């Protein structure tokens, strides 16, 4: 029987890797999740605790996938604390995928927003010239730098880390680094995922110069399939119309970059 993507499948965590003191990657076997498109997410059930939307992280082993989670509130901490051998439920994949251009690409990721970026890197062509910008507050929050370099070893590439406090890589905001890049050289496509204020600036930098840009939006998600409405961004439903939108569309959306809805559905400013 074919799997219905809306039914929760139980998987067992096979390996847990600490990326930073507050970020972990949990690996499991699942053929469907191992092959999702870059940008797609899953709804992840932590039994007895909650269910959260999570970008599907890549695994080097075929037939496997992972989630990279930052410990935050109750739910994400519950997932963070999952150990090898524990079971979680997954449904999906949900959402659309990045429209990957050819040529000179710029990827800008912050925190766990790097997860879809890593899968995007597995889809670039060998002829592409790829720049990855990784933003973090400080040195101990940097992760996936080695992975990015490894994934791009056959490409002309550049992985740049910038930390707000300068404790590692370039000092300064990743948005400034991005602005500098797009203002000085040509790009065929810019992709970003991370804090919305960051994405907003990246989209502005690129879109104002006519560069194709896509951002993956995060919103409160309950259903993941376009029923509950909790993920709305203006008239868009992030889970169903997105999560990936391009610069053209985002520049017309009055909520992007400014406000989002909380668990009760009240519009709050970022």
């Amino acid at each position, binding site marked *: 029987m074919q799997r219905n993507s809306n*039914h929760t499948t139980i998987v067992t965590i096979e390996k847990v890797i600490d990326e930073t003191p507050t970020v972990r990657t949990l690996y499991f076997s699942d053929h469907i999740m191992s092959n999702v498109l870059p940008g797609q997410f899953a709804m992840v059930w932590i039994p007895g605790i909650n269910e959260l939307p999570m970008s599907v992280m890549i695994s080097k082993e075929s037939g496997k996938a992972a989630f990279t989670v930052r410990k935050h509130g109750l739910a994400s901490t519950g997932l963070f604390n999952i150990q090898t051998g524990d079971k979680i439920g997954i449904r999906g994949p949900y959402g659309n995928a990045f429209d990957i251009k050819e040529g000179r690409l710029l990827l800008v990721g912050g925190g766990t927003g790097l997860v879809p970026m890593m899968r995007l890197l597995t889809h670039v062509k060998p002829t592409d010239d790829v720049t990855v910008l990784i933003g973090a507050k400080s040195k101990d929050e940097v992760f996936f730098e080695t992975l990015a370099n490894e994934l791009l070893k056959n490409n002309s590439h550049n992985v740049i880390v910038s930390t707000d406090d300068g404790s590692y890589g370039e000092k300064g905001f990743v948005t400034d680094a991005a602005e500098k890049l797009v203002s000085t050289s040509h790009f065929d496509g810019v992709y970003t995922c991370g804090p919305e204020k960051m994405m907003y600036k990246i989209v502005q930098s690129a879109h104002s110069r006519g560069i194709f840009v896509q951002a993956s939006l995060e919103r409160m998600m309950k259903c993941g399939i376009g029923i509950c409405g909790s993920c709305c961004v203006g008239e868009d439903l992030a889970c169903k119309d997105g999560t990936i939108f391009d610069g053209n569309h985002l520049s017309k959306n009055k909520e992007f970059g400014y406000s989002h809805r909380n668990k009760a559905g009240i519009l709050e400013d970022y």
Partner: protein
Amino acid sequence: MEPSLATSIGKIQLNKPAMLASGILGISLDVFNRLYRSGAGAVVTKSLSSEPWEGYPNPTIFSVNGGGWMNAVGLSNPGATNFAKMIESNQNVPIMVSLVGSIPKDFEMMINEFKNCKVTAFELNLSCPHVAKVGLEVGDDPELVKKIVTTVKNSTDVPVIAKVGLGTTHYLNTVKIAIDSGIDAITAINTVRAMAIDVETQRPILSNKFGGLSGTPIKPIALRCVYEIASKYNVPIIGCGGISTWEDAIEFFLAGASAIQLGSAIGDNWINVFDDINKGILQYMKKKNYSTIGEMVGLAKKF
């Protein structure tokens, strides 16, 4: 003559008979506009309470093996006050405001919040099957239904609809009391109390354990409720429950509904479902030579 999709539910006039059911995509005016453009005759808001509610933790919604959806979002909503502000600017969309509460005063207060809004109707949710003290727990209490409907009717000139469902007392009694207390129309039905257990982890899937079943599985149940109400009482009815095709819509009209609502079908077919249903109804009307929806309403009752 080209048949018309316009319909009236008592005093309520709609250009199209298929509405968005309460709780589905229903928290933003922008989305309401989009749905209206997609062919919805009206949108019903999420059920609003006097204070904002976060609702239950996830999982709150999942798709049921064998069809349909189960949810226990726990009536998460921004509260009537916040919501009223959000729709104050509305001019285009026929909005029906759904309300939940435990006592008449809750409803009175909330209705007052909407005095500056263009509201097509208020829908009293007397039938949510998974939140304590409101919804069905109200609908199951005949005295309380009477008090609430009477209070609400005294607080507003906007038409008031009571939404009923399968509770612990007979829904037809609730309908009767609501009618006797002056209700303008009935929406039938809400979700049906249900549950699912994950066999691997051996625990209920919804964080609230129990939830409401919606979608195709409940259609035959909803249809019989509409037919039963229409056979017994002379009250305008809005049919709701598992409607996903134009044939479903026609079945509800024939059973006695003047309009329909749908929610779950959006999860299966996205918002084009309104347009698909409208087109199908029109084609059926042409074939059967009807010029108005009203001509079909209740035709199956004569058998």
